[in-house]
């Protein structure tokens, strides 16, 4: 008879000697995840005792859920000691975590956890919905509670996109005078973001604000607003903190950015995994927090550390 396959028990007990940790982002090739990698490598470099080897690998698009499942399965099969990963799909990846745990692999989630979340698996993340709400409230405040807003999501159906959308829409519901007049995806491509924003501006000459859910969206929107000569007239609030986003804040084109703490996610996530493997410690969730970066707080040292993290200048967990 047919049955669902149980993975064979993995080799256990490599607590001594070098550790192999797989660190898997939602997708490679984005600034945010590069910060995660730097954090993870920093933690590995600082770890006392035996050598820690980081295996950094990921799919190329956040939408490639089954690709991530395959990748993590391959890592578990290969017998890594721990996996630190960001789930592209909460429910789907729950199984993968369970299977890995069965094989004796320590698992830590960063950025996005699974559903259900195994109790042995901690989540090191920002509360995306809360951060999105905070940013949107800021936006509403800037508008004086009234106006036309456009929304630039990037990939409907992905966890990151949807939580950021959820927080945004929660706040809009409470503010009926702020009207959502356009919603066009950037497909995580700055040129596409630029084009759709240009076209949105054409169709909505009275637009007051734009909420962009990730880096390419913010940069594309800022560029379009600049080009239309509407810097300052249109409030842009968005996510991520690439150098040119920050520069746009300095110039006043962008009003506020949600800064997460990807470095911290990589750093804390890796440390948590190492602790768990070495000492069987019961792990706690860690909120890496978020910061709303505006022209006013740009020069604060804590904000600076969040914006330009490095092993020697670690950002603090901010609230």
């Amino acid at each position, binding site marked *: 008879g047919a049955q669902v396959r149980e993975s064979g028990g993995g080799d256990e007990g490599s607590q001594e000697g070098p550790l192999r940790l797989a660190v898997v982002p939602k997708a490679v090739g984005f600034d945010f995840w590069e910060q995660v990698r730097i954090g993870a490598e920093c933690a590995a470099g600082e770890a006392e005792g035996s050598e820690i080897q980081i295996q950094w690998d990921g799919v190329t*698009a956040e939408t490639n859920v089954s690709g991530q499942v395959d990748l993590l*399965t391959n890592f578990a099969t*290969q017998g890594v000691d721990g996996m630190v990963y960001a789930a592209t799909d909460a429910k789907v990846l729950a199984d993968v975590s369970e299977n890995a745990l069965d094989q004796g692999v320590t698992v830590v989630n960063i950025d996005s956890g699974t559903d259900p979340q195994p109790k042995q698996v901690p989540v090191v993340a920002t509360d995306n919905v809360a951060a999105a709400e905070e940013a949107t409230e800021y936006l509403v405040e800037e508008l004086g509670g009234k106006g036309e807003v456009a929304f630039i999501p990037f*990939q409907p159906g*992905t966890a990151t996109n*949807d939580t950021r959308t959820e927080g945004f829409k929660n706040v809009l519901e409470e503010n009926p005078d702020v009207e959502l007049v356009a919603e066009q995806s950037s497909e995580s491509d700055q040129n596409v973001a630029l084009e759709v924003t240009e076209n949105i501006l054409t169709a909505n000459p009275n637009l007051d604000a734009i909420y962009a859910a990730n880096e390419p969206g913010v940069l594309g929107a800022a560029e379009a607003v600049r080009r239309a000569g509407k810097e300052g007239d249109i409030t842009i609030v968005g996510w991520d903190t690439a150098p040119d986003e920050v520069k746009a804040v300095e110039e006043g084109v962008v009003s506020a950015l949600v800064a997460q703490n990807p470095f911290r996610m990589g750093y804390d996530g890796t440390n948590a995994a190492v602790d768990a493997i070495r000492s069987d410690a019961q792990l706690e969730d860690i909120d890496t927090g978020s910061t709303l970066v505006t022209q006013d707080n740009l020069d604060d040292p804590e904000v600076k550390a969040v914006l330009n993290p490095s092993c020697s200048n670690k950002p603090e967990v901010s609230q």
Partner: protein
Amino acid sequence: MTDGTENGTSRGSALRDRLSDFVSQLAAAGALIVVFVFLSFASPDFLTADNLFNIGSQTAVVAVIAVGMTLVIITAGIDLSVGSVAALAGVMGALLMSSFGLSMPFAVLGGTLVGAACGLTNGFLVSVAGLNPFIATLGMLSVARGVVYIATDAQSVFGLPDSFRLLGQGVVAGGIPIPVVIIITVAIVGYVVLSRTKLGRYAYAMGSNLEAARLSGIPIRRYLTSVYVISGALAGFGGMIAASRVASGQPNYGIGLELDVIAAAVIGGASLFGGQGTVVGTLIGAFLIALIRNGAVLLNVNTFYQQVIIGVIIWVAVFWDQYRRRKLASASE
């Protein structure tokens, strides 16, 4: 003219033909074997039951869809819509279970039929409306993706019965993965269709010379449409396997999948100009891609370097394969 010598040579050449067929297919497998042997030495984790099991099930989706793609490519067509169609079928099949309570086999059938319906549209556009296959299926790529987003609001479909996991994650008879059984079954059926049925023969003929096929009395429209229906159905079935592997219907599934699938067929010797392609070759292509991906992870190659290496290996593998085939062809014929 019908003398003994002639007959003698004819028997001899039939044998030679069969032999050279076999040898040339082995040659096609050459690159695959080299990569396999290399990985066996390079990574201690490679040649484990678990890992081979993983590779087998991970290849299933691409392999199944690539068999349909091979058929389409043989007719000098192309099906760019397989990724979107797989997503649509997977989601629809999942909805059939979660919202309509259908049992697993019927849901799988349902998903496959959704794929077949997309294929029928493609086939109609190509063979009746006379659209270029690239355009017809490019349109479907967009339309099917739109429909799946509309149907689900881009949300994954969960709440599927546990039995559904069997398709993509099950094992039979002492540990053979069901996806592997599916690959073998689809491959055998595909092989028979291509080599022994009118549909297969006409596919080669249409791809080699459409006008000659028409003037030989082949009902072009019917057979061309069938080819796209089969490709759609296999894309739908592949979508159901993918859905089962993650126990959910994913509206975002399969973006860019068409390139992998077409690459598998082309690496396996199918010609985009039609008239050439085999199921065995395509499977070899699919496994070659899967092996390279798997090996890169096992050897912990940096992701960015992985992309470079995958590209280079594809070049080398196909070049080497062509080179060997050419040499074998001249030696054994």
